[in-house]
């Protein structure tokens, strides 16, 4: 390490300029906009103080958006984390067929969500879709995957789990491989059952990884947009409308900039709390290492 007066600042400067222009300023601007009633077309912005927030919390549509987002997030995070942890334990072998399976389940992760959404829209078609055909093969009744308000949100969860499960599986496999061998060997000598080994060795040793993936997948859930924009537009009956789509809708379709910004500020608040929790816990974890 060397002390240089201004050179390191010059190196960081370009990043900071972008950071200021496209992160700090927009966030401050969004908070400012949330205090106004403005439709983007007229030049006058009416200062309404916290009126937008009051309307927002009283808005049944927004409350449903919050509920939808929570259901979507809890289910997606719960399912991806559990299933990929189990898959990781099952697929953590070096044989060719296992690595091939790992590659296969990872592949949806790098494909554009536009293509994934359209592909699933086609497979979820009530009349001609592949999914209902498979249900027929098993003698089951067809499902209106994206047109039934009681089902649509769960269909989106299914797609999101399908897309991201391979990514988390690979992360967990990397985590499993970093557990020191002697711990497993000690367990084998003690005649520990696989279930006990999983609960008492694997889970605790993987807990930092599980924590990391939990938070990442949580934040990823708040960003959900493409599947909604392409498959459902928030419908049917607002059943699949979530945070980002709501903000998009109010900003770009209804031109209620202040109102949309207020929703953005609420989402920012939630993400910030999660970020603080994450860094606090991470700092502790680094300390113990």
């Amino acid at each position: 390490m060397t002390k240089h007066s201004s050179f390191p600042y010059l190196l960081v400067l370009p990043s900071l300029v972008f950071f200021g222009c496209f992160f700090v300023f927009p966030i401050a601007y969004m908070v400012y906009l949330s205090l106004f009633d403005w439709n983007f077309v007229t030049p006058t912005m009416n200062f309404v103080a916290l009126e937008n927030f009051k309307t927002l919390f009283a808005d049944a549509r927004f409350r449903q958006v919050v509920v939808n987002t929570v259901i979507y997030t809890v289910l997606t995070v719960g399912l991806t984390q559990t299933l990929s942890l189990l898959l990781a334990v099952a697929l953590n072998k070096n044989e060719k067929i296992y690595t091939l399976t790992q590659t296969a389940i990872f592949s949806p992760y790098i494909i554009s969500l536009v293509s994934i959404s359209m592909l699933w829209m086609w497979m979820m078609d009530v009349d001609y879709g592949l999914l209902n055909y498979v249900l027929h093969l098993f003698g089951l009744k067809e499902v209106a995957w994206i047109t039934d308000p009681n089902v649509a949100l769960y269909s989106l969860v299914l797609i999101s789990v399908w897309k991201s499960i391979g990514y988390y599986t690979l992360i967990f496999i990397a985590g499993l491989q970093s557990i020191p061998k002697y711990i497993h060997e000690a367990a084998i000598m003690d005649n520990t059952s696989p279930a006990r080994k999983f609960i008492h060795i694997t889970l605790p040793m993987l807990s930092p990884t599980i924590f990391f993936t939990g938070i990442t997948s949580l934040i990823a859930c708040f960003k959900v947009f493409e599947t909604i924009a392409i498959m459902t537009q928030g419908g049917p009956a607002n059943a699949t409308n979530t945070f980002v789509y709501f903000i998009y809708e109010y900003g770009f379709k209804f031109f209620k900039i202040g109102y949309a910004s207020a929703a953005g500020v609420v989402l920012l608040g939630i993400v910030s709390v999660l970020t603080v929790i994450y860094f606090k816990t991470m700092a502790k974890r680094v300390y113990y290492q």
Partner: protein
Amino acid sequence: MEVVKKVLRYALLAVLILIFVAPFVWMVLTSFKSLGETLTFPPELFPKAWQVQNYAEAWRSGPFLHYLVNSLVVTVLVLLLQMTTTVLAAYAFACYDFKGKGVLFLLIIITMMIPEQLTFLPIFLMMSSTGLLNTIWSLVLPMGVSAFGTFLLRQRFMQIPNELIEAARLDNASEMRILRYIMLPQAKSTLTTLALFSFISTWNNYFWPLVMTTNDAVRTLPLGVAMLRSSQNGIAWNVLMAGNIILVLPIIIVYLLAHKKIVDAFVYTGIK
């Protein structure tokens, strides 16, 4: 018993592979079917006659060459910009001591947690008032820093032995020369990883071009493909799937070429 177990295990693996790969196979097969064949139930697996013209039709349905060029230009510019800002900042954070270093690094890392889906509205207004809306810059500039890249590259730079740098200093090498001839060559594989990362996420991005463009001039491929969906007489699934293959193909090719690196890159985010 052993044999039965083995067969069972292989069958389960095959089912897993099927669940994750079959939809893409279905996509490819659909892209070669006639419109009539996409509307039969039970669905036929293979097309009777392979309709290559679906691809031509998808391509002709809009200014696809234009979309493709835009996608390429945006991807290359974002890549160059991110590489520049990231390399410089990571070098500072890894190899120098300066006042406020910790706070600045933390601030940049926090951007990893705040998604672009949160700041798009104010950025849209900023772009609109500066006249940058519907220009390439509205798609490129907001992607100028990569917090993840800065983090990853800093880790790599910190592993490079200090003696190497000290030796170069004794030889009177300038700080930029040290970066160029010592740090960068040592960090080659991390740089490749970052480039792949940036390529995949920029190429696939639908949200940002959707909110930042209002006309075809700077629209990118994902938008063009998504617009295939909105035809007045029902959705032509076969043409739509052909369009999607055009969008997905570059990613698949890159994935096949650099599969190991991509997997490592994505997994690495989870370890540290």
